């Protein structure tokens, strides 16, 4: 408890809310409630960024995750119309598998952070999250990972378009059956 009380109060409240939201994502039976709780969690994570004086990251996190990706999640869930009657019975194996993989991920992340030692904010900590500094770091120090991420996204987009496109022979076939 002594270690906890030395932390600033806003951080404690925010962390509590974040963990609460994240727990509700997992425990909620209703998928739409899960997604809404996840959106709430993203909001609190953005608030964490603001506490760290990284407003740019905070807003981008909101725009990309809460504003775009979660809208698509919600969109698909609404179309699926998942309610209690139509939901198939799931066996416990799924739950066990999910718990094991999440535990493994936790293990890997903790191990990676422990051994590598996270690069603590360099230079002036004041403006580390501002657009100018972030852009400079991205375009110099982390240029290769940045470009690689871009290529990854493009390939994902091309893949999605290819999957969504109907096969030409299939179209012809369905037209034939109609006529």
């Amino acid at each position: 408890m002594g270690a906890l009380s030395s932390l600033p109060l806003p951080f404690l409240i925010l962390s509590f809310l974040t963990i609460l939201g994240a727990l509700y994502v997992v425990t909620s039976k209703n998928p739409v409630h899960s997604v809404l709780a996840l959106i709430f969690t993203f909001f609190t994570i953005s608030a964490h960024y603001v506490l760290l004086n990284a407003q740019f990251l905070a807003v981008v996190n909101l725009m990309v995750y809460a504003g775009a990706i979660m809208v698509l999640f919600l969109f698909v869930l609404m179309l699926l119309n998942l309610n209690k009657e139509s939901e198939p019975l799931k066996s416990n194996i799924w739950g066990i598998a999910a718990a094991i993989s999440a535990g493994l991920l936790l293990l890997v992340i903790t191990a990676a952070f422990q051994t590598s030692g996270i690069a603590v904010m360099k230079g002036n900590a004041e403006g580390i999250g501002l657009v100018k500094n972030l852009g400079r770091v991205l375009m110099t120090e982390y240029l290769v990972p940045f470009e690689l991420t871009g290529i990854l996204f493009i390939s994902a987009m091309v893949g999605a378009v290819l999957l969504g496109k109907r096969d030409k022979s299939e179209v012809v076939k369905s037209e034939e059956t109609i006529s």
Partner: protein
Amino acid sequence: MDSALLLEKSILVAILTLITLGIAMYSTYGERKVAAFMQDRIGPNRAGKFGLLQPLADGGKLFFKEEFIPVQAEKWLFILGPAVAMVTATITSAVIPWGTEIPMFGRNVQLQVADVNIGVLYIMGVVSVGVYGIMIGGWASNNKYSLFGAIRASAQMISYELSMGLALIAVIMMSGTLSLREIVAQQSGMNWNIFYQPIGFILFFVSALAECNRAPFDLPECETELIGGYHTEYSSMKLGFYLFSEYVNMFVSSALMVTLYFGGYNFPGMSYISDPTFLGIAQVAVMFAKVFFFIFVFIWIRWTLPRFRYDQLMHLGWKTMIPLALANMVVTGAVILLFGN
């Protein structure tokens, strides 16, 4: 942060919220009067002089209507929907500069609630969250028409947000800053961005129409197909919040267009005014005059153009606006690279 600044900002927030709500209220009156004029009718003229009390009468009526929540609806989400719509609509105006500053009670009061260095991104963030109000409300109603409206709204808003963002990027590239205050300051004199970014402005304007769910893009609430769209099941002030947030959005997007493309509070001959108090007031007046003009354009368009079909809407968004916005961005970049600033 000293307490005087805190007090100053709190008062500014209160005033701005009141003005926003007041303008949204009288936009409904303006809408009905303009519609009446275009259709050769008189319009509301019973409540007060020229019907000026009509918005108050409408608001009062909505307050006293029965508060109805359908049995099959998700109660809390049903209530959350209009709340989210209203909150996201009203917080957008926080970063818009209404003037430079005005001396008052011995201190220079900045006429902007929050001068954050990422103002443009803040607005895009709030706009992208704004769709949840409609989605949550439409889904929680447990009505197929509401769900259709919600799904249409979210698809439309995601599609047009892209071209809006791409149009904005061209402006940001030109001005080299994300702060709205600096973007306005760079447009002093007649150096407005509209002369450099005409295509960007048109793209932004069309996207703004679609983001506000205004005609000709009002498919989410298209009466003839979906009864009322996402707010079919709503009554009383919850319905009022949905309708009202549309007008608030209209006001805010007009203010944003003025800020980004039409020089904000700048007007020709501004540098000749030496009295700072008069200058501040004049700037606010000019800003609001420009904003009212755009609100009028919004209304004008609604009563002139017919509604798009849904496939036409998607076609326009993805196959016309986004390629055009991308081309606009590339051309802007090339011009900046070749001719410097």
